């Protein structure tokens, strides 16, 4: 298990007979208590399809039922019941060469990270921009890895916005994603980008709606809502 931030951890799973997956897909995890009570939750796959082990990244919700168990109780060697991979709409296939705009809020960055890792693993040069909204710098998931990948200057740029707290000397954005920010970060319309937006429902709906207003082709904007929290 990899602790990504104080509340977020990635579980690395050995999956014999895993059929492989596409970047953006998720798995449904089911847990069963001794009295037979079951709970099921969906988690996006964080690892690239090239990785031999499957990774999911889970945010521990304060009033959560399953996340505190996965992040707090599971030990190496424990078995996890899951089905998948699931999804065919919110997936990035590298054969699609359109410039990529990835917009994530909180744990919504997880499926986008699978896309970014996939892009690196196959040496794709598809121009890609990630706009990532977090509450504070400590809440940025995969922070070091994103810095490292952006520094490769191979066509990936990363822009952060911190909505609640910014460290001294912060030179990134410091507010909720809005029209002005998207205008600066998004690929121009004539480049006909492919956009993936993922995170809490209000963020996803706001960003998708802004992009439609900005004139981007609605079918080119793919969304995945994570519910009220989700990050």
């Amino acid at each position, binding site marked *: 298990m990899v602790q990504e931030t104080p509340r977020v951890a990635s579980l690395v799973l050995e999956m014999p007979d895993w059929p492989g997956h596409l970047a953006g897909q998720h798995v449904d995890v089911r847990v069963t208590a001794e009295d037979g009570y079951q709970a099921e939750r969906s988690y996006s796959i964080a690892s690239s399809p090239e990785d031999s082990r499957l990774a999911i990244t889970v945010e521990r919700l304060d009033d959560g039922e399953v996340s505190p168990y996965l992040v707090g109780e599971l030990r190496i060697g424990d078995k996890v019941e899951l089905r998948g991979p699931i999804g065919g709409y*919110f997936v990035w296939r590298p054969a699609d060469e359109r410039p990529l705009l990835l917009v994530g809020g909180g744990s919504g960055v997880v499926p986008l990270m699978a896309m970014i890792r996939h892009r690196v693993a196959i040496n794709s040069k598809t121009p890609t921009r990630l706009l990532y909204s977090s509450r504070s710098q400590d809440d940025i998931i995969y922070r070091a890895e994103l810095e490292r990948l952006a520094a490769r200057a191979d066509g990936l740029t990363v822009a952060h916005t911190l909505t609640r707290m910014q460290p001294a000397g912060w030179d990134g954005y410091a507010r909720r994603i809005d029209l002005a920010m998207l205008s600066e970060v998004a690929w121009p319309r004539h480049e006909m980008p492919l956009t993936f937006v993922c995170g809490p429902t209000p963020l996803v709906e706001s960003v998708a709606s802004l992009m439609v207003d900005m004139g981007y082709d609605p079918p080119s904007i793919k*969304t995945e809502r994570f519910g009220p929290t989700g990050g």
Partner: protein
Amino acid sequence: MTVQQSDLKLDGNAIGGLLREIFTMEMTAAEGTCSSCGKVHAVGQVEVYMNAPGVVVRCPACGQVQMRIVKGGGRYWLDLSGIRCLEFSSD
């Protein structure tokens, strides 16, 4: 009366697993034509309410109920009458 959006709203991605149980293939990329307003959306884009005695799927354009899915007692009940036509790949 004003109706505002509920935070409990998800989208078709959240029922990808459930639909995979019912259909023989992945369905979130399938495109559905709303029987009420005629707009076409991928299943991944439709509004999904899961905190209910069953799953309720609504058109993102007009809010009409497109699907109802109940699973229980060893059976599924599936109402797709809110979708006039569902198009998906045979590959």
